[in-house]
C-alpha cells in the first residue's frame, strides 16, 4: 500500500480561501435497494452511519455515507480500510441484487477553506450555495467537469471530482480563490 499516491499528492494554494488536494480517501460505490433492512444494516456496520436521506451526507469521525442517487450511495472510509469494507459489504449483501465497487482511486478530493470558501465554488458551480442545507451533498458541474460537494465544516467545503481531471479542477479552484477576486465582503 506504500506505493499508493493521490492525484496531486496534497497540493495546496492560498488565496482568499485555501484550496488543498485532500489526499487518499477510501470511497466505495454501493448500488442497491436503499430501503432494504439488510442494506441499511450493512451500511451502518461499514460506515458507522445510517443510510442518509436523499441528497444528504452523514460523516462521523472519518467514515460515512452520501446519497448519490435513489439506488446509489457513496461510502467513505479511511483509504486503508476501503478494500476490507468492499469485502464486508459484498459479503453482507451477497444474497441481494447489489453492486459494490471500490472507487477510491477513481477520484480526487479537495478542501476549500475560509470564510468565503463558498465564493470560490460560486464561480464554478451553478449551485445556489446560500440555500445548500446542512449535510447536503450536491452533485453538479464544476466548470466543465462533474463534481460532488458538501459543506464539511464551518468555512470549509469538500469537493470530489474524477482523478484524471484533478489538475484541471485544482487549476480552476486556485484561479477562483485568488485574492482580490472575492465576490463580496461576506
Amino acid at each position, binding site marked *: 500500500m506504500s506505493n499508493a499516491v493521490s492525484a496531486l499528492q496534497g497540493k495546496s494554494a492560498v488565496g482568499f480561501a485555501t484550496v488543498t488536494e485532500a489526499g487518499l480517501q477510501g470511497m466505495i460505490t454501493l448500488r442497491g435497494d436503499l430501503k432494504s433492512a439488510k442494506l441499511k444494516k450493512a451500511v451502518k456496520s461499514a460506515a458507522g452511519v445510517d443510510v442518509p436521506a436523499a441528497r444528504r451526507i452523514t460523516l462521523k469521525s472519518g467514515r460515512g455515507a452520501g446519497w448519490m442517487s435513489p439506488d446509489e450511495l457513496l461510502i467513505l472510509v479511511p483509504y486503508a480500510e476501503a478494500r476490507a469494507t468492499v469485502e464486508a459489504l459484498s459479503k453482507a449483501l451477497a444474497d441481494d441484487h447489489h453492486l459494490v465497487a471500490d472507487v477510491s482511486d477513481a477520484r480526487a478530493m479537495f478542501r476549500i477553506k475560509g470564510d468565503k470558501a463558498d465564493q470560490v465554488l460560486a464561480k464554478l458551480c451553478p449551485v445556489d450555495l446560500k440555500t445548500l442545507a446542512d449535510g447536503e451533498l450536491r452533485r453538479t458541474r464544476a466548470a*466543465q467537469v462533474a463534481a460532488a460537494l458538501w459543506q464539511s465544516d464551518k468555512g470549509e467545503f469538500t469537493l470530489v471530482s474524477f482523478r*484524471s481531471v484533478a489538475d484541471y479542477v485544482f487549476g480552476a479552484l486556485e484561479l477562483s480563490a485568488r485574492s482580490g*477576486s472575492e465576490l463580496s465582503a461576506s
Partner: protein
Amino acid sequence: MSTRLPKGGRLIDRTKPLNFTFNGRRMQGYQGDTLASALLGADQMLLGRSFKYHRPRGLVASGAEEPNALVGLGTGSRFEPNQRVTTTELFEGASAASQNHWPSLEFDVGAINNTFGRFLPGGFYYKTFMFPRFAWKHVFEPVIRQSAGLGKVPQDRDADRYEYAYGFADLVVVGGGVAGLAAALQAGKEGKRVLLIEQTAHWGGRAPVDGVEIDGRPAEDWVKATVEALGKMANVTLRTRTMASGLYDHGYLLAYERIGDHTPGDGRPRHRLWRIRAGHVVTATGAIERPLSFAGNDIPGVMLAGAVRDYVVNWAVSPGDRTVVVTNNDDAYRTALALTEAGLIVAAVVDARASVTGALPDAVRAKGIRVLEGRGIAKVKGTKRVTGVSICAQAGEGAEIEEIDCDAIAMSGGWSPVVHLWSHCGGKLIWDDARAMFRPDAAKPPTGDDGMSMVTAVGSANGALTADEVLADVAKQMGGKAAKTNSVAEAALEPVWIMPQGAGPQLKMKMWLDYQNDVKVSDVQLAAREGYHSVEHTKRYTTLGMATDQGKLSNINGLAVLSDALSQAIPQTGTTTFRPPYTPISMGAIAGEARGDIFQPLRKTPMDEWHGANGAYFEPVGLWRRTYCYQRPGEGVHEAVNREILNAREKVGMLDASTLGKLIVKGPDAGRFLDMLYTGVMSTLPVGKCRYGLMCNENGFLSDDGVVVRLSEDTWLCHTTSGGADRIHGWMEDWLQCEWWDWKVYTANVTEEYAQIAVAGPNARKVLEKLGGMDVSAEGLPAMEWREGVLGGCRARVYRISFSGELSYEIAVPASEGLALWKALIAAGEEFGVMPYGTEAMHIMRAEKGFIMIGDETDGTVIPQDLNLNWAISKKKADYLGKRAQERSHMASPDRWKLVGLETLDGSVLPDGVYAVADGVNANGQRNVQGRVTSTYYSPTLKKGIAMGLVKHGPDRMGEVIDFPADGGKVFKAKIVDQVFYDKEGAKQNV
C-alpha cells in the same frame, strides 16, 4: 470650444487629477471622469470617423447609447478596440486612440466617400458587388477588407484574467436610478432576496442631474439614504459597474461586471460574467433620448440635450460656449436651464411645436432666453465643429429665416424606454401614441418556466417620464407608497421625425438616423421605394441599427421614417428584434476561467508525469492526454514510432492503456442485458475468460468495441474505447432506466479506478515473471483469460489480451499504484530491452494485424458486417441493439463496401482517406468511386506502406489493383490483399 468649468461637477474629485493620452497627446481629467467627459473637458470634440463616409464625429451621448466615440484603449497586452468613451471610467495613465481613419483623425483620405456619398446609397454593397463575378474575389473583397471594420485586432495575448460567477435571487432589479432603488427597497422590505445592479459606477441615474427633489430633499440625498438603507439589508445585494447583458429562458440573466477596467493591472479579474437565475426581473433601465433628424445633425457639437446636461452637471464640462437647444418636448428646457445655471450662453431654444407654454418653457423665458416656436433647424453649419445653425419653419421646406451662431446644439426628439431586456425573451411592446414611444405591453410579458410573467418594467423603462410618474409606477407595480417629488406638469411632445417637415432630398441626404453605420433618412426612404417593406429587411439592407446600436439611438426615428415612406402607422411597421448583449461584452468575459491550462479539462493518467519526464510527445484522445510516442534526444516523431514498434515486436514494449473505458455490469439479468448490448453472446462467457465484443446503435452502425471480461457469476467488466467510456456507460443506463427498467442490473463506471498497462512483446512474460507474485505462464494464464493477484507488490488483475499481435498482458492496478507499477515494470524490463510505446505504435501494430479501430474503420455509417466481423455477431440471438436495422435491404446488400487490406505496388504509403475511383461518372458529373482508405501507415515491421480500406465487393477481388487519385494529380495504384499483414496464424501471441 468645449471646456472644463471652474466649479461644479457632482461626480468629479478635483483634488485627484488623472493624466491620460489621446492619439499620443497628453491630457488631464479628474477622478470620477469618464473618458468622454475628460476628452470634452480637454476640448477634444473630434473623436472618430464614421464607418462608411469617414465623416468627422464627436460625442452625441453620455452613456451606453453613444454611437460615435469608440476608441482603441490601452496598449500591448491590454489593448482593446471599440471601447466606448462614455462608459469608460478615466484612470491614471489611460491611453486612447481614435479609429477608422487614415492617415490621421484630422485629415482622412477615406472622407472622399463623403463627397461621393450619393453614389453609396443604402444597399450599395448588394447592388455594386454582384458583377462581374470574378471581381468579388480579386477586387471588391480585398478593398473592402482593407477599409471595413472598426478598430484594430489586438496582437498580444490578453494580460488580464476573467471569470464567471453564478448568482441566484428572487428578484433582480436592473438599473440603479430612482425607479430601481425604490423597487429594490420595497422588495427588500418584503424580505425578498434582491440583487440590484447598475451599469455605471454611480447610483441615482438621471434624477440628480435633472434637479429632482424627493420627499422635499434633493434626489442626490434620497439616493444616498436609500443606498444606505439597502446596504443594511442582509437580503439585498448591490452591484455597480454591472450591466445586464441579456435575459434568456427561465429567468436566466447574464450580467457583465467590470471589476478592473478602471484599475488595470491591480491583480483583480478585469471582468466577471454573472450567470444569474432570477425568480423575477424588474427592469428599471430608464429611457434613451432620441436625436432629431435635421441636416448636419452628425457634425461634432450636435449632442443629445440630456447628454449636454449630464456633462455640465456631472462633470462640469461645457460642450460649447454658446448652445442652441432644439426640441419637440419640454424636457430639453432643463438643459437650457442647466447651461444658464453654469454661466453658459443659450442662444435660443428652437421648438418645433407651434405654441409652447408651461412651467419649464416659462422658466427658460424668465432667464431671458429666446424661445422660437414652430421652428426647426434647416441646416447645421460647420464641418469638424458646429459653427451655427440655419433656422427655418418646422412646417416648411427649409427656407432660412435666420442664422444663429453657436458651437453646440442640444437636441431632443423625446425619450424611448429601454425595452431590451423585456424584449430579449419574448416580451411584446405597444405603441404609445401620446408619448410617441414603444413601451412594454404588460399584457404580453416574457414568461418563465411556470408560464407566468418573469419581467416587470418600471419607471421610465415602462414609459413614465417625470419623477412623479416614475415613483408612482414603481409603487403601483411593486407595492408600497410613492414618495412625493417636485415634478411640474409638462406639455405633450409633438412627434418630429424629420426637420423641417417638408425637407427636400438635399437636406434628407444629410439627416443621419444611424451615426455609426452612416444611415440617413434618404437611405431608409430609398429602401422603402425599392420594396423593402419589412422593418427587418430594411435594417439589413441599410444597416440601420446594426452593430452596437441594437435599437438604442436610431430605432424609433428610423422606423418612423420607414412608416412614413410606406404610408402606414408606426405600430404597423413594428420594431426590429432586440438582441443581447445590451452593450458589447468582452471576449474574455465570455471565455471566463476557460483559458490557458484550464481552457478545457485535460484528463491525465496516473503515469502522466512519468511520460512527460521521458520525452512524451502528447496527443489528445477525447479529453485525455496520451503519449503518441516517446522521443529520444535528436529523434523525430516517426523515427521514435518505428523504433518503438520494432522494439515491441523484437523485445518488449509497454503502453499506458489506463484510458480504456472500464464498466462493471452486475446483476441477475446482467448476462441477458449484455446479450442485448453486444452483437455477440456474453452470457455464455465463462468466469475467468475474456471475449471481444461489438456494440451497435439502433441504426445498426458500429458504435464501440472492446474486450468483455467475466469477473464472477453475475459480474462482467466491459472495456470500451478510450473516448467511449462515458458515452457507453450513459448508453447502458439509458436502456436500463428507460426500456428494461424491470431488469435487475447495476452498472458502475470504474474507468479511472484502474491504471492499466499493456506489456507486449516476445519478452513480456519474462518481465512479469521477474516482477513476480503471479503465475503468468502459458498454462497458468492462457490467452483470453485473466487472473487476480499481487504483481510486484501491487494488487493486480492481469488480462492475457493482445491488440498488438504479440504475447501481451494488460495489467490493471488501482490508479494510485499505477505509477509505482509502471516504474517497477520499466526497471524489471530493462534487461529484456523494454521500451515504452505510444498510441501511434499501438495503431500501427494493430493495423499490421488487421484489427479495426473505432473511428478509423468506422465513421457512423459502417456496420460490423462491412468489416468482416460476422464471427462476432450471433446468429442465434433473437434480438440485440442494431439487429433489426441490419436486416434492412440496404444493410444486407452484397454491394456494400467491405474491409480489405491495401498495398501499393511501389510500397509507398497511401494518403489517408483517399477514394478509389471506378469507371464512369455519377449524375453530378463526378468520377464514380468504389472504395476508400480507412487506415494507412508505414509499417516498420514490413518496411512498406500498409493500409486498410472499404472496397465494393472487396473480399472477392483479392489481387486486383485499383486506383486512388490523390491531391496533386498523383494516382496511387494499390492491390487488394488480406487485411492481416503480419503473423496471419497468430503464432506470436499464442506462446
